């Protein structure tokens, strides 16, 4: 059965195949706005698809990825809802329309497809990639410790059996390398946002160092305003700050890499925590979570649009 964008249930978790099929239908329904592009293959050979929202050529761009950690299912589900929101609001939401009339938006809904499939088939609590670690019985690398940003530093493990194993080298994970190559070859990304769950945090660089980045005051101010917008819907309270101080030192993270690559507006979100479910947030909370997150994402993107650099 082919799913249409009308028939997919956004208040449900879906398999990789369903999400990928749904992407096709979204593209079919919004041909002048959305395209599905393969950015490469995962370790186990699965395609990695990014949805590109674009109304012109040679535009500066915003990057959003969801679900780099496989078990954080509300992240991928939020990505699906968000993609639909962008496609359906374009043309009716004046602010979003103006954004997409001047910038492109790339949305990678399943940033770790092998891990995501593994959470559906073998181990719901799997976090990492599924690459083989030579000399170890344990598989997988934490793809958010594998970026070339203080790689191998504090907050990452040298043990392949650890959930925060950084891998043998920076960008050793093809899932990371695919994104790095796309961002680098594009050369005009102005914002990079990674969406995780759960902890209710909105963070900016650095994680590999506790020193402040040069843009800290602006990033902090944007982050706090975004968190305020998010809270306006259901009162969900976020903490805002740099990764190192708000959680703990964590080297090799995606937004540290993007910031050091010159993408000033680099943020990471940790979606909602009800204090009852951890990674197993009930599907009934997907839409509320995505809806409140959208307000924060939109605020950040509007700031990016209005503050060219």
């Amino acid at each position: 059965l082919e799913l249409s964008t009308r028939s997919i249930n956004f208040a449900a978790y879906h398999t990789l195949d369903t999400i990928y099929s749904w992407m096709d239908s979204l593209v079919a329904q919004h041909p002048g706005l959305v395209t599905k592009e393969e950015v490469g293959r995962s370790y186990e050979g699965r395609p990695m698809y990014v949805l590109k929202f674009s109304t012109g050529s040679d535009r500066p761009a915003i990057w959003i990825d969801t679900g780099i950690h496989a078990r954080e299912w509300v992240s991928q589900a939020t990505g699906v809802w968000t993609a639909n929101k962008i496609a359906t609001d374009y043309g009716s939401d004046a602010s979003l329309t103006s954004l997409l009339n001047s910038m492109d938006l790339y949305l990678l809904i399943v940033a770790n497809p092998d891990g995501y499939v593994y959470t559906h088939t073998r181990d719901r609590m799997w976090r990492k990639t599924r690459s083989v670690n030579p000399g170890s019985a344990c598989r997988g690398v934490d793809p958010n410790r594998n970026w070339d940003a203080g790689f191998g530093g504090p907050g990452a493990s040298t043990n392949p059996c650890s959930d925060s194993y950084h891998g043998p080298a920076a960008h050793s994970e093809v899932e990371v390398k695919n994104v790095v190559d796309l961002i680098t070859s594009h050369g005009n990304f102005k914002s990079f946002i990674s969406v995780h769950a759960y902890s209710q945090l909105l963070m900016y660089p650095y994680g590999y160092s506790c020193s402040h980045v040069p843009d800290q005051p602006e990033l902090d101010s944007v982050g706090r305003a975004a968190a305020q917008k998010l809270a306006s819907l259901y009162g969900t309270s976020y903490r805002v700050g740099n990764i190192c101080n708000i959680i703990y030192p964590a080297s090799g993270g995606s937004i540290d890499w993007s910031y050091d690559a010159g993408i000033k507006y680099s943020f990471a979100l940790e979606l909602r925590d009800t204090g009852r479910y951890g990674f197993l947030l009930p599907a009934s909370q997907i839409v509320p979570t995505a809806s409140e997150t959208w307000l924060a994402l939109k605020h950040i993107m509007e700031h990016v649009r209005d503050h060219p650099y």
Partner: protein
Amino acid sequence: QRLFVGDQVIRINAESEEQIQLLQALETQEEWELEFWRRPVSTGLPVDVRVPRGSLEPVRSYLLAHDLPFSVLISNLQELLNEEKAEMERNQK
């Protein structure tokens, strides 16, 4: 498929730096096979840890012995997983 029958997820709210250090010591305790969903960092953030069924007693004793305030976030992880799976199957139908 990996099962988590009887595993609990416990939320610990450390109230001092000393208690954070006690929890950090737990992270290195490999014998109990704990999985930290949220690691011990500061008193402002709760610590969530998945405790395998077989380690529940020693972990609870450890927490009680050190006056570490905790509550049960998930009383049986597999039950929650089963509910999630059933809901997905219903949705697919």
